[in-house]
């Protein structure tokens, strides 16, 4: 007897509706929250460096479900992860919310405009760069207000390149394999 492969999870999510779809959105949110929280346990040389594995779930959501539902996942992830880590409504929370929303907007734009020309890795790098740049902008306008903080910008772009590539490859792996 050969076990027939059923439709992949990606296909099931894509075609689901009603309560099942709500369940899948909640499931993806949980995955994103898990990665966001698990990332805080990874030792990093600098506190604001992130791998952005939760971003892989955002990429997966972008390519499987509607934009509005993906946005729910992003916002739910930021709020719930900050509640779990203990940074809710702190400076870090404002920054991560800004970064997540800005990068989501850019990734959504590029994914809907030219997904034939850019793979998920490129879109992920764009999102990571946007996230870091917008966070630095918010830090500079709201909290620090010094020209000095722009010295971080090239380093942040380097981190964004590395982290965006890793999370992009991971998101690509998710889309192709699940």
């Amino acid at each position, binding site marked *: *007897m*050969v*076990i027939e*492969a059923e439709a992949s999870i990606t296909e099931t999510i894509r075609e689901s509706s009603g309560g099942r779809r709500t369940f899948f959105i909640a499931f993806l949110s949980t995955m994103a929250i898990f990665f966001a929280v698990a990332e805080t346990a990874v030792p990093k040389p600098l506190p604001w460096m992130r791998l952005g594995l939760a971003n892989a779930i955002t990429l997966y959501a972008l390519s499987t479900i509607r934009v509005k539902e993906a946005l729910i996942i992003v916002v739910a992830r930021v709020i719930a992860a900050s509640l779990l880590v203990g940074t809710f409504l702190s400076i870090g929370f404002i920054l991560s919310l800004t970064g997540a929303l800005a990068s989501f907007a850019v990734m959504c734009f590029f994914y809907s405009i*030219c997904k*034939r*020309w*850019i*793979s998920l*890795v*490129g879109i992920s*790098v*764009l999102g990571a*760069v946007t996230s870091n740049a917008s966070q630095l902008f918010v830090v500079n306008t709201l909290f620090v207000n*010094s*020209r000095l903080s*722009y*010295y971080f*910008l*090239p380093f942040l*772009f*380097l981190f*964004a*390149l590395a982290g965006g590539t890793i999370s992009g*490859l991971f998101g*690509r*792996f998710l889309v*192709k*394999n699940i």
Partner: protein
Amino acid sequence: MRPLGTEYQRVTCSKLLGRGNFIKIGDILVFTAVIALTVFLFTRTFAGDASAVRLKVTAPSFEEHYSLDQQKLLEVPGPLGNTTVVISDGRAWIQDSPCKEKICIKMGKIKRPGEQAVCLPNRVIIEVEGNRKSIDAVTR
């Protein structure tokens, strides 16, 4: 009957790296753009003004750097009013100030790294910055 695990063992490695169109043209563009931007920012922020002599103007409301190789008239706002700073011929001085003593104007023209002209009542400081400090301190 095939055990369940074999399916996964077979496909994981090739799928992780991706088959078919792994890199699209937009990816190359994105990577090139980001790397170019990073290199540009690195050279701009760290190599560009390393040896340059600059004038640092500090006031309660703002802090700016200016090149000394220009002709410029600055109106620096302070608590008492506007202090007029002039940059000309590689030198800078305070030309007019709303303070009572006018000490800042008497401090004269500054050009060497480390030199300062300060208006304490109006809380305006101009200072020449640079790496090559020709003198340790200036007394007047």
